[in-house]
């Protein structure tokens, strides 16, 4: 925040009124984020196509630009020049506004993500809740698209997407809730800062080097939460195996069926941007965000700018890694059926997420409470912080593993074993 004000003070005349400086500040940052988002989306499409082609013994786009990297731009130009078709039966305004309503909230998500050490556009105190709130708005856009198109497939797709968004939003938020308990706050900007140090123990061992590896994913609570969160992120971002709302082999393109040209492209951008934002969010919350070996060292050496750059690189590396994982999953598995999707959310993810919140509470109690808060039941005062973390890790690991095994066992489908018998 401070850094950006410095930048705009160079640009703006000293005597400019305060509100103008603020407005310019925000405009510049928003511009950077949105242009960055657009470039990211183009790269994402290219990476996805090339990577899937690799998995399928094909080459993928390799003609436009070196290695085909400009293919997305060519596609974008094609989209721009296509005819914009509005079905005669459609509700004109709803049809027109739907892609915008779908894209805008996703762009708003980018504002609160911490992109690097000191690189966050808006440090919102309730960042986690903000992400959840804003991402739920895009459901309205999908609903508008499905209803405004007056197409049965579009309506079915909209219904499916809303059912899916609602079902997966709950375990997604509860998975985040575990981490909120651990960090004691909902600010996204603070989360990476709390993930410094070494795996599991963070910076609780005095004298241990700050490797920037105290990621929550290395704790039992963070591991289970991270897995649940990533699965839910796949569903929220409508990636295979949860791409049910736009299942092309079933309901053509779902809510996008009647869209063409630029409006279709806006949906497309919205989807990829959402995927990337969710990948960044997973990285920030569970994979240490911009933390990584070297960041703390550079900052201590007084090279703040270099540390910020390195931290940005770490974050992008993690986010792209997660995105590529999404791509590989897409190439490897087919999609679930609607009922399977729902039962997966309600029968597997939700109970596990709830257990995980309980584990997180236990973790906090074991690591931060004094024995008075335990009602003198637990003599924890004499232990060093790292010892308490060890105990907490052991306890929560047992709880989470047990819960996972239990949920998997009670939900096991009756064995259907049709076998081929040679006649």
């Amino acid at each position, binding site marked *: 925040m401070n850094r950006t004000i410095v930048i705009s003070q160079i640009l703006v005349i000293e005597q400019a009124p305060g*509100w103008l400086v603020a407005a310019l500040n925000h405009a510049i940052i928003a511009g950077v984020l949105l242009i960055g988002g657009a470039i990211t989306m183009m790269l994402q499409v290219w990476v996805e196509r090339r990577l899937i082609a690799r998995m399928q013994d094909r080459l993928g786009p390799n003609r436009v630009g070196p290695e085909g990297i400009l293919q997305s731009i060519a596609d974008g130009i094609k989209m721009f020049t296509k005819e914009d078709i509005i079905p005669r039966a459609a*509700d004109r305004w*709803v049809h027109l506004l739907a892609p915008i309503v779908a894209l805008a909230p996703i762009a708003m998500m980018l504002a609160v993500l911490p992109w690097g050490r000191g690189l966050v556009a808006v440090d*919102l*105190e*309730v960042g986690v*809740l*903000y992400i*959840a*709130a*804003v991402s*739920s*708005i895009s*459901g*309205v856009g999908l*609903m*508008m698209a*499905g*209803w405004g198109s*007056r197409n049965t497939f579009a*309506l079915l797709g*909209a*219904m499916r997407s*809303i059912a899916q968004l*609602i079902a997966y*939003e709950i375990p997604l938020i509860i998975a985040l809730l575990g981490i909120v308990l651990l960090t004691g706050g*909902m600010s996204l900007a603070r989360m990476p800062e709390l993930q410094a140090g070494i795996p599991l123990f963070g910076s609780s061992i005095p004298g241990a080097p700050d490797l920037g590896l105290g990621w929550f994913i290395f704790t039992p609570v963070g591991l289970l939460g991270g897995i649940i969160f990533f699965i839910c992120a796949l569903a929220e971002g409508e990636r295979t195996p949860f791409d049910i709302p736009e299942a092309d082999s079933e309901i053509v393109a779902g809510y996008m069926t009647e869209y063409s040209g630029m409006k279709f492209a806006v949906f497309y951008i919205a989807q990829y941007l959402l995927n990337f934002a969710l990948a960044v969010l997973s990285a920030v919350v569970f994979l240490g965000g911009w933390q990584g070996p070297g960041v703390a060292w550079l900052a201590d050496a007084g090279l703040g700018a270099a540390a910020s750059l390195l931290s940005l690189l770490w974050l992008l590396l993690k986010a792209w890694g997660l995105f590529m994982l999404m791509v590989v999953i897409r190439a490897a598995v087919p999609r679930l059926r609607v009922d399977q999707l729902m039962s997966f959310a309600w029968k597997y993810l939700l109970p596990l997420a709830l257990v995980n919140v309980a584990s997180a509470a236990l973790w906090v109690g074991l690591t931060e409470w004094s024995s008075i808060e335990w009602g003198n039941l637990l003599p924890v005062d004499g232990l060093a912080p790292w010892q308490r973390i060890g105990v907490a890790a052991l306890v929560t690991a047992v709880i989470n593993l047990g819960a996972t095994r239990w949920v998997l066992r009670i939900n096991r489908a009756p064995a259907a074993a049709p076998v081929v018998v040679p006649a």
Partner: protein
Amino acid sequence: MVTVIFIAIASLIIASAVLVVISREIVRAALWLIATFFAVGALYLLLEAEFIGVAQVLVYVGAVSILILFAIMLTRQHERHEPAWRAGPWWIALAGVIGLAAVLITTIGAVPWRLTDDDLPVSRAPQLGTALMREYLLPFQLAAIVLLVALIGAVVIAMEERRRRTPTLADDIAAQRGAADRAEDGTP
């Protein structure tokens, strides 16, 4: 500056609220309702009540309105015919509106508004959480019970739906086979 933004948001709220009422198509009315909720959320943000603002958007835009939309689309055939609401003579409605306005205005005028710069305890999430878990524990738990009952109700309805599901070919054959077995058992 803040006043300008406030006037913009307030007029947005009023305009969309009016449109909710006068929209002839129910889905459009629902969409305007969403706009109203969203603008109210923005108003909270302007008051620096971040948590309430975000919660407003999450609950009202993200959940309540979407459920309203969902219900509308599921229950109404999406063919476009003019809604036939000719509900009584217009003067009854007018009288009702005037009466309601009178009640509201007198109520608002009668409340001793505490216009201070004090940091109100409910504006921040931790205080809100503490308040819910201490002073308002009983209402909080009662609300949880209400939600649980609603959840169980939904499960019951879903169970009934499942019971009347269309049988598949395999179900039919199994039923036939079962009937045949029963008939065989009955004959000797």
